[in-house]
């Protein structure tokens, strides 16, 4: 059957089998592999995309059902060459590790902030409660979304990888001193003294 929809602002039309899942359509027909899948039962939320602005689990939506709708994937988060503040927030606050759940988490965060620009932590946790992250323990995801809420215009930087590695410091000045101790210890091979 033939389907048409809008994906990240582009009109697409394809000939597909009716049973093609939206996640497969996005990944394999359109080649947008930023949308992942992690289960078959709509429990993990790795496949979340926005459909008409609302998060949906694309493993449990048929591509045919999405026809005529507006789909937004992680590839469509950055606009006009600028990273979405949510994307910047995830980098700032270590909201990702393996990166697998990240696209879905960021899209849900974007939908939440569009509806509620200043959510509290509980509202953020509720919003992402249908999505599993196996790496971060969620606290840094909550912080990432809060960062985005606090920076609605983001850094205002161009869509370029953050390379200013010296700027993100200052977690604790003490860490700077410790390596010297360790290096000295290792080089002299002496026992560590209490």
């Amino acid at each position: 059957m033939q389907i048409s929809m809008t994906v990240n602002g582009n009109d697409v039309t394809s000939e597909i089998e009716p049973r093609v899942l939206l996640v497969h359509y996005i990944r394999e027909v359109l080649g947008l592999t930023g949308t992942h899948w992690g289960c078959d039962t709509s429990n993990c939320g790795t496949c979340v995309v926005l459909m008409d602005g609302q998060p949906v689990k694309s493993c449990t939506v048929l591509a045919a059902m999405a026809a005529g709708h507006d789909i937004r994937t992680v590839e469509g988060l950055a606009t006009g060459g600028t990273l979405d503040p949510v994307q910047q927030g995830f980098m700032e606050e270590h909201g990702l590790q393996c990166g697998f759940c990240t696209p879905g988490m960021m899209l849900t965060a974007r939908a939440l902030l569009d509806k509620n620009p200043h959510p509290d932590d509980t509202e953020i946790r509720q919003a992402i409660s249908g999505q599993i992250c196996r790496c971060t323990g969620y606290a840094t995801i909550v912080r990432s979304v809060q960062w985005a809420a606090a920076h609605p215009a983001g850094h205002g930087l161009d869509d370029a990888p953050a390379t200013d590695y010296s700027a993100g410091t200052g977690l604790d000045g003490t860490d700077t001193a410790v390596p010297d101790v360790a290096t000295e210890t290792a080089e002299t091979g002496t026992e560590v003294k209490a």
Partner: protein
Amino acid sequence: MTVIHDRPSNPAAGDEDRPIGYGRIQRKEDPRFVRGQGHYLDDIVLPGMLHSAILRAPVAHARLVSIDTTNALAHPKVVAVITGKDLLGLKLAWAPTLSADVQAVLVTDKVRFQGQEVAFVVAEDRYAARDALELIDVEYDVLPPLVDARKALDPDAPVIRDEIEGRTDNRIFDWEIGDKAETDAVFASADVVVSQEVVYPRVHPAPLETCGAVADFDAVNGKLTLYETTQAPHAHRTLFAIVAGIPEHKIRIVSPDIGGGFGNKVGIYPGYILAVVGSIVSGRPVKWVEDRSENLMSTSFARDYIMQGDIAATKDGKILALRTHVLADHGAFNATAQPTKNPAGFFSIFTGSYDLKAAYCSVTGVYTNKAPGGVAYACSFRVTEAVYLVERMVDVLARKLNMDPAELRLKNFIKPEQFPYANKTGWVYDSGNYEAAMRLSMQLAGYEDLRREQAEKRERGELMGIGVAFFTEVVGAGPRKHFDIVGLGMADGAELRVHPTGKAVVRISVQSQGQGHETTFAQIVAEELGIPPEDIEVVHGDTDQTPFGLGTYGSRSTPVSGGAVALVARKVREKAKLIAGAMLETRPEDLEWEKGRWFVKGDPSVGKTIAEIAMGAHGTVALPEGVDGNLDAEVTYDPPNLTFPFGAYICVVDVDPGTGQVKVRRFVAVDDCGTRINPMIIEGQVHGGLTDGVGMALMEIIEFDEAGNCLAGSFMDYLIPTAMEVPDWETGFTVTPSPHHPIGAKGIGESATVGSPPAIVNAVVDALAPFGVTHMDMPCTPARVWAAMQGRARPPI
């Protein structure tokens, strides 16, 4: 020395100038991930690539009577259907495991667990491959299954591995360590002895990305390129050379971005081998990716240890000895991924963080009709089980002695001046200051106030629990004289090249599954050479591009590969010194190092930066005798000992007395992983592990019914914590560097997974103390908690 810090759990990034090297910097891998530009296994598409699917056994134990593939082969899009019989012809029906056993690639004689691989379909697309599975007719002769390890050694138990000649029972091994006679003697004369059976149920790492492979066999050149979700690409290359008979120089393993591993992606699964066979047979690339049920039902599980623990102490709370016997369920094939000489992994560190007079443990491993595996899920080679046992036993003892559990621990810790400390089972702990970490966690938690609050709540009938746990990890395997996996020493290599313009490439043998290697290892080089991290490319995950090494698991990347990277950078630094000497026409011994630069002692204005030296090395500088024209080096690091991270965790739970629901209200984690490279990444590793702990303690379990059906075959049944079940983590740290590691780092990847389950269970049991509960087994689901309150610790299902 130990440096003690506490800090707010959500610090605002400061603006203090940061010297190049260690510290909180953003991750180098994040720009691609936040754009959806990560490149995972299922994202790989090769020209002409075929897809595949595995037909799996619907029952746990059955004779295979017949397989008819006629209808499947008639499917217009099916290219090949491979059965066990086909593999017998290729001598590939059975593959060696990582524990000197063999595992069936496809069933030839008998199904041994539900979900076992029976047939392999290769087709033009993944939908067709799935459809064709339904067209294969298989006849089974169902046998009685054995899924209860306690019955595995019964005389009438079905013999699962009857294909092994002479085998008449399900015993895999008996293993012991420690001095039994000495331990028994201490127990015999102790004031107080407490015993408790502690079960660590079967759980699963369940990374969000399932396992998969794309095999591309080039028949003309005889070269196999295998893209795999693997945490250990080099070890896989060697094993594939052995298994498939392809010469090792003709095998290239590529591990792309990995969507979480946690030990699930260490082993070699039948699907990987089948993808290779499929590619050889079809002459085209073949992709195999498992679905979630396949992942949960057939790939490496974790734990499944039934531990009988005994603890002996004086009546005033001096712990004297620990003793345990473990019944270890290894499933249908002994496929645990662990060092050869350690059939129970590093469980022998069950002596924990305490100064004991004696300790003894024995472990019996058995086969059951369950999926193989056993060492996974951030377990540090079974340190999780060990720490859970000892930390539960200490709490049981505290209750017996009516002592505060924190106080009992403080009284028994190994003292800072006792390090290096040789425990009673052969480990030499490198460094530690346990009391400092414990006291810091108590201070951060407000321990005294919590106990007061608890007393008030108990008066009102409210159930609040405070759980304390302390752990000593053992990671960074390991010295090759003691540790190997299938004969491969557990070392790691590193190669560093500084290009003429001063930018560097470091190639490592370990494989990130989200830990941030591209950042951490760049920071180590940056610290050693003064090159900014953004000017250092970290190459990993491709065996054609990187030096040999055993990969990432058991928290070994920083302890082993991190050591290799520091040493290779120092080697480059020393070479740079010789070249700088030539450039400055100075004797090298007259040069002094500051980060990024060699200069003349006493005249800091005269010197050469690493970039200048690199250009010199590749340029026209007259090089000293024996120095070749580059600024490159390589090392293989064989660590002199393992490292021993530790931590003190305090958990606060509230239990609903009417329903048994447990809410983790607070969790304070103080970790010591030695030298800290990137505090942001460290904190992330801790947070993730704490969440694993909530999962295991409260909800995760793989159970089987009596017919051998796996009851956790999807994420509807295998529950993983969401953002709603975990609190906002409160973290702190102390720093006690490892004395033998090149930079003093110890590893952090699994500490929190190891340390958090006992803290949570101890908290739940503490909450239930008014009901006389002294122990309950994980997971503490509402039903089980309620049952414990009724005096029955484990409900029958």
